[in-house]
């Protein structure tokens, strides 16, 4: 009997969690891009998808300079401003990778965990800390040899209170990218152009 009771408890928790996770995802007001990722099949890992081009547009800006060193220095400065440390830098290829460890505790999750704890008497893991990364690639514009293209991708890995990886995701909020590029424009004293 005890086992059955435990099992039904876990089943209830599972239903509760999957439900809240689902509503959290759809309530995020995200674009269609992340939905497409959810549906992505393992076999399609190296296929270009319908949203590849939209993603490229969001992540890319063109600056009218060919001074790559200056652009790399500006990018590194911006990352430092936002508390990133530089993990990788290959000037020949224009690749910069920055990352930072931050807390990932969210009020909504804490409330849900407390509720589950009170109702069912068990502790469920909540997100605790995250590794946020910014990967930037600088290259010559293919159609315009007087311009430089900057493409940035933000992503994060999140671990929960059990130290399990709970999320591994690309960050796709357009505002994050707009903010990054507007800071870069200011730092370079140049106007950014969409592709």
């Amino acid at each position, binding site marked *: 009997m005890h086992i059955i009771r435990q099992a039904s408890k876990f089943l209830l928790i599972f239903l509760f969690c999957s439900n809240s996770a689902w509503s959290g995802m759809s309530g995020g007001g995200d674009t269609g891009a992340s939905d497409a990722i959810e549906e*992505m099949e*393992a076999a399609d890992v*190296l296929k270009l998808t319908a949203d590849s081009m939209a993603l490229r547009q969001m992540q890319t800006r063109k600056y009218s300079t060919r001074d790559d060193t200056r652009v790399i220095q500006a990018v590194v400065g911006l990352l430092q401003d936002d508390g990133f440390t530089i993990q990788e830098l290959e000037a020949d290829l224009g690749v910069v990778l920055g990352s930072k460890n931050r807390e990932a505790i969210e009020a909504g999750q804490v409330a849900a965990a407390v509720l589950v704890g009170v109702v069912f008497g068990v502790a469920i893991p909540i997100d605790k800390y995250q590794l946020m990364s910014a990967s930037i690639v600088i290259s010559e514009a293919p159609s315009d040899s007087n311009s430089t293209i900057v493409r940035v991708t933000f992503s994060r890995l999140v671990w929960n209170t059990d130290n399990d990886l709970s999320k591994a995701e690309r960050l796709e909020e357009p505002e994050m990218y707009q903010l990054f590029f507007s800071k870069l424009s200011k730092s370079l004293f140049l106007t950014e152009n969409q592709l």
Partner: protein
Amino acid sequence: MTKYINIPFISVIFISFLVTSCGAVRDSREALFESDSSAVELRSYQSRVFDTTDKKKVVKTVIATMQDLGFVIGDADLEIGVVSGSKYADEHSAQMTVTVRVRNATQTLVRANVQQHLESVEDPAIYQDFYVALGKAMFLTAHNVD
């Protein structure tokens, strides 16, 4: 009382059934050098040859193609000719490394390998997808390694 005595016995039978049915009686350290395909087979479908010796152009195009495919570039080195990246898509996250080296006076060899779901990807069709995208981006045809 009798029904409690049987519980350990039943669980031993159940666990041994589980272990044998999985066929998983092996040392997990063996994964260090394991592969479903032979090294020759693996190289043939993971590699392609392009008719160019512009290594920098190839490496830069590999980076751009990986970004288009949703990978976050984690590491790149022009001298060695290596690019690594991760694709973050929760349950379908993947890691990929691509190497580029000039093969002879006219050709460059590209080799990709991918892991996903705790396994190395050994489906030639998946690598073909990558080389289709890379070939388009380079305006060059990807040849099989002869």
